[in-house]
């Protein structure tokens, strides 16, 4: 009967393992958001769902989703966006890991967690053909038809596009165009010149400030579960500040 007990224990263990490690949890979702794993069917994304490396998230018109990863990293997607969690690995005991989020289209605000604070070189975002390496905590990215806009609220990012890498500091932004040219400057100036599609994506991100703040106040237990301990906002998230509202250069 030991074998029967072992089998039953394993089946029970499977259910116990409902909350997987190395995941992000959906802390807010509005409208129609969905997730696709590999070639699996897309399914509706609901608050509390977990997403993992390899998953692609979609948001429809007038929709948004906010994710909190195990290390505290936050990613908020605005309407008409598509983002793939290309890589996510987190080792809670050492606080190490790596993050690579690929924004295919739409807008995303990303606030780094423990991995980004300890090993910023292990965190990167991709948008169209641009790669954004982080040196700070809070960045907003929008992409549409190969054009990419990035603004930095806190810290700095290295922006690689068309074979060139530039550093963008807090309060600054960059607008990279499909023809390979880009313009760098104060975030407000950059945002004043972008296409309506990109402006819409950035505007949508601004509307997610409250949901992002709520996500930040949930501390991660490091095993995919939201910790029950209430805590204050993490770095880079303030009640009034959106990822694109920084001024000055």
């Amino acid at each position, binding site marked *: *009967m030991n*074998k*029967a007990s*072992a*089998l039953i224990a*394993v*089946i*029970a*263990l*499977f*259910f*116990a*393992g*409902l909350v*997987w*490690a*190395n995941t992000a*949890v959906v802390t807010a979702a509005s409208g129609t958001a*969905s997730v696709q*794993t*590999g*070639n*699996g*069917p*897309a*399914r*509706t994304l*609901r*608050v*509390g*769902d977990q997403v*993992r*490396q*390899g998953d692609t998230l979609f948001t429809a018109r007038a929709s948004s989703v906010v994710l909190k990863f195990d290390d505290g990293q936050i990613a908020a997607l605005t309407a008409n966006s598509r983002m793939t969690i290309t890589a996510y*690995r987190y080792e809670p005991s050492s606080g190490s890991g790596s993050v690579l989020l690929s924004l295919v289209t739409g807008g995303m605000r990303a606030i780094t967690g423990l991995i980004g604070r300890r090993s910023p070189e292990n965190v990167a975002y991709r948008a169209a053909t641009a790669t954004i390496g982080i040196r700070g905590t809070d960045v907003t990215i929008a992409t549409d038809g190969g054009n990419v806009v990035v603004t930095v609220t806190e810290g700095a990012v290295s922006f690689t596009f068309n074979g060139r890498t530039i550093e963008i500091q807090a309060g600054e932004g960059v607008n990279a165009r499909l023809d390979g040219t880009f313009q760098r400057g104060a975030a407000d100036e950059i945002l004043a010149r972008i296409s309506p599609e990109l402006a819409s994506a950035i505007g949508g991100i601004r509307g997610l400030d409250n949901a992002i703040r709520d996500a930040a106040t949930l501390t991660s237990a490091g095993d995919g*579960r*939201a910790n*029950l*301990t*209430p805590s204050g906002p993490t770095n880079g998230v303030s009640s009034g500040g959106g990822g694109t509202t920084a001024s000055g250069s």
Partner: protein
Amino acid sequence: MRPTELRGRRWLLAAPILALLFGSSFLAARNLLADPPLLRAAGALAAWNAAPGRPPLAAWSEVHAALLRSAERLPSNPITHELLGLVSLSRADDARHMRESVGHFQAALRLRPHSAHTWAALAQAQYLLGDTGAAFELALVRAAKLGPAEPGVQRVAADYGLATWQHLSAEARAAVERLIAAGVRRDPAEMLQIAHRRGRLGVACRHLRGASRPLDSKVSQLCQGTEALR
């Protein structure tokens, strides 16, 4: 004849039948469970569950194929179908295997319709396939009704029940809530954690008064703002 004597005679008749039943069940269980692929699959599932990421394809394919052979050899063993369902479910990145898992759980349930764990697993597979219609709700309700005291069933039904709460029928909500109440009595922190993640704290918090364990201050703090403790 005295009632005690009558009872004694009944036992004399029933004892050999019961012994025969237990004996044959035991032998059947021993034979079935002696099937090495089942034990290997169970061990592999445990290992995959503990490790981050998805199971390695080569190892997964080996276990999957061995279980399919077992199912072919002995199609009446519900455990084989259940394990096949769980193994298929572990490859959520492949639509074909995800759909397969539903079929295996349904096959297991045809053989053992009173398994709350299998109904819960079926509900989970359907949710992950994006099918949260009538079949999902039926699986959820059956799981909740058959295994109200099973911790694993409580977790699954609470998780997916709260995820789809606003779309559930009144009957399904009642069944899920009874199970959440039982879960709160067993382990309030765990059930609140699930409800918190699903943004439905109120449903769990209103059952906190029935909790058997002393309440952690963090737990009660979490419910402070909800209607239940006002």
